[in-house]
């Protein structure tokens, strides 16, 4: 196999070739429905190609560095140890921890907890066989790849990811912490974990997805997660993105809410070189409630794009959205918040807010609320603010003895705290607080 270099690498052709080689080797082992899905996904990827500058959905997303990086598919094995995991991810002793490396579940790195009967946490690769009908029913149901090249790419190239089922009526007391590590030890790789999470009616779950990589490593994480929240179920979700500062993270989350259900999510971005998060939440029935919050900490030359879509397809649903950005250096951050209120979605209550703290002269924020309202009896509000640290508050801190840097950290933490406080795992919340305050992490023994 010839070595790809940035000069000879053509991203679309290169990725199509990776798929062809993978399909040749593994296609036969797949169930026909999954193999068909993957074939149609790669065909669509071939048609779509990568978005050009005139594609409104991608206008502010600068993919240049991603497309210039020759990628390979990762090896099935990993040399990562528990010590490596401990260095990359804050310890969460109160949670059942499942570690995936390049999309494959690693039981030796995981600490599965005592989970209620009927709850399934498995590798999607295993579930494709063990729970074939269930997986085939849910896989790709929400994550449509007809317009999104990276969802198409993920569908074509995923080998595994998390498969979680919480049966109806079950409350999972122990939070689940799913850790996705990209390991690009030899060369830049494409990691495409695919997760399918199904929460039954009246079930309850706290779920954290953490994405990390080793410092200095270059890779593309192109992940997709599909979460289905059953009627009157409640899910508290958080995503912590802390990829290598040289890596790319293009991730899509789809959430479908049934009647009377609640889904709250805190999306925290603190890593990566080029990052894009697409979150789509759809109200599929009445009286459901969805909260999508986000916190982006961007510095240096980081580029972080958050696109959210909340589809009020049914009446009497509430959505809340609070996206906060802390921007330093020459970082460029984009927030695009779509809210659709369909014609019959009366009594919708949708609130959206985007707040940015600019710590440098050269940081950039593009913020774009996009409300498309077709119903007439609704409450929809949106707002965006951009500000700097308050001089009066800085002086107050200094007048009490805090150094300038500590005062800035404290006030930045104060700005970010509203989101951090809603992270469902106590240990993770404490680690995030400590990180923002520039303190040493609490002892791992917790």
């Amino acid at each position, binding site marked *: 196999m010839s070595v790809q270099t940035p000069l000879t690498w053509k991203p679309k052709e290169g990725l199509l070739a990776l798929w062809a080689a993978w399909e040749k080797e593994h296609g036969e082992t797949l169930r026909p429905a999954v193999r068909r899905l993957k074939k149609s996904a790669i065909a669509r990827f071939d048609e779509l190609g990568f978005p050009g500058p005139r594609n409104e959905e991608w206008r502010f997303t600068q993919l240049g560095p991603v497309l210039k990086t020759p990628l390979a598919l990762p090896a099935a094995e990993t040399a990562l140890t528990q010590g490596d995991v401990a260095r990359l991810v804050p310890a969460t002793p109160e949670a059942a921890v499942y570690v995936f490396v390049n999309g494959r579940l690693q039981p030796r790195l995981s600490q599965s907890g005592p989970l209620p009967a009927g709850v399934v946490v498995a590798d999607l690769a295993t579930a494709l066989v063990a729970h074939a009908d269930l997986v085939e029913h849910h896989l790709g149901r929400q994550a449509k790849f007809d317009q999104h090249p990276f969802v198409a790419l993920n569908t074509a190239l995923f080998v595994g990811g998390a498969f979680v089922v919480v049966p109806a009526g079950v409350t999972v007391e122990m939070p689940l912490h799913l850790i996705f590590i990209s390991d690009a030890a030899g060369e830049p790789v494409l990691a495409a974990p695919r997760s399918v999470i199904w929460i039954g009616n009246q079930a309850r779950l706290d779920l954290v997805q953490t994405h990390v990589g080793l410092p200095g490593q270059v890779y593309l994480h192109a992940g997709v997660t599909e979460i289905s929240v059953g009627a009157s179920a409640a899910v508290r979700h958080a995503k912590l993105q802390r990829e290598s500062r040289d890596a790319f993270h293009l991730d899509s989350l789809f959430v479908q809410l049934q009647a009377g259900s609640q889904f709250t999510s805190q999306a925290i971005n603190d890593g990566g070189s080029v990052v894009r998060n697409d979150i789509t939440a759809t109200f599929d029935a009445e009286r459901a409630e969805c909260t999508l919050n986000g916190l982006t900490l961007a510095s240096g030359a980081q580029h972080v794009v958050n696109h959210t879509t909340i589809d009020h397809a049914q009446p009497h649903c509430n959505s809340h959205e609070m996206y906060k950005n802390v921007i330093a250096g020459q970082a460029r951050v984009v927030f695009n918040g779509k809210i659709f209120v369909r014609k019959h979605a009366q009594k919708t209550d949708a609130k959206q807010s985007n707040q940015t703290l600019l710590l440098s002269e050269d940081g950039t924020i593009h913020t774009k609320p996009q409300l498309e309202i077709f119903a007439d009896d609704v409450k929809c509000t949106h707002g965006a603010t951009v500000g700097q640290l308050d*001089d009066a508050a800085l*002086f*107050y801190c*200094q*007048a*009490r*003895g805090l150094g300038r840097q500590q005062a800035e950290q404290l006030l930045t933490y104060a*700005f970010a705290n509203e989101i951090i406080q809603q992270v469902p795992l106590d240990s993770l919340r404490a680690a995030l607080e400590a990180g923002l305050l520039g303190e040493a992490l609490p002892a791992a023994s917790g």
Partner: protein
Amino acid sequence: MLTITNLHARVEEKEILKGLSLQVDAGQVHAIMGPNGSGKSTLAGVLAGREEYEVTAGSVEFLGQDLLELDPEERARAGIFLAFQYPVEIPGISNSYFLRAALNAIRKHRGEPELDAVQFLKLAKEKMKRLQMDEKLLQRAVNEGFSGGEKKRNEIFQMAVLDPKLAILDETDSGLDIDALRIVADGVNALRGPDRGIVVITHYQRLLNFIVPDFVHVLHQGRIVKSGGKELALELEAKGYGWIEAEQRALATV
């Protein structure tokens, strides 16, 4: 402890302090009184190190150090505490975290071990009791949603915890009802001692009924024009500031 000599300071182009001199020794309580615009808050701001005030002449020496050379946090660590006329609200940070961070910054500077959350809580609760403060205020965000009285009490509470060598109270009495005034004054009196200097800046004599000063100074047009004992405050209360102004005009025409 504090020696201010011929201090001149301005905000933007406007000169506010025009040759102020003052000597405060350990164990003394000085009251600085004066009408609006006489430079009281400017003096407090200059001593605490507010950036918007530019010192154009004169010197300030604090415990043998050139105070004007120090950053605001260095002044605080050296033992200067300013109780703000308008305490700042900081949403998102608990009162307790804020004050513990401040105390530990100061303790670190003094070479003392930092206090953990439990040790701090014990100290804080002790000090709060004296000021009749609700312990719940510890977990609330710094000054956020506090009433005027709660904010002022919170300043004195911070002062009690940080244990400064020189406390400067900038119009701490403004906006306080008589009960709150008594409590605040009681808190300040508890901090009087042979090692501490206190400067009380106020427009009204009222606070000085409760915090009885050793010296009273009248600030007028950026200079101290009259100094005396506590009886001077009573005289000002009876006659108003017009009397001082008339006296100054008379002096100017001589």
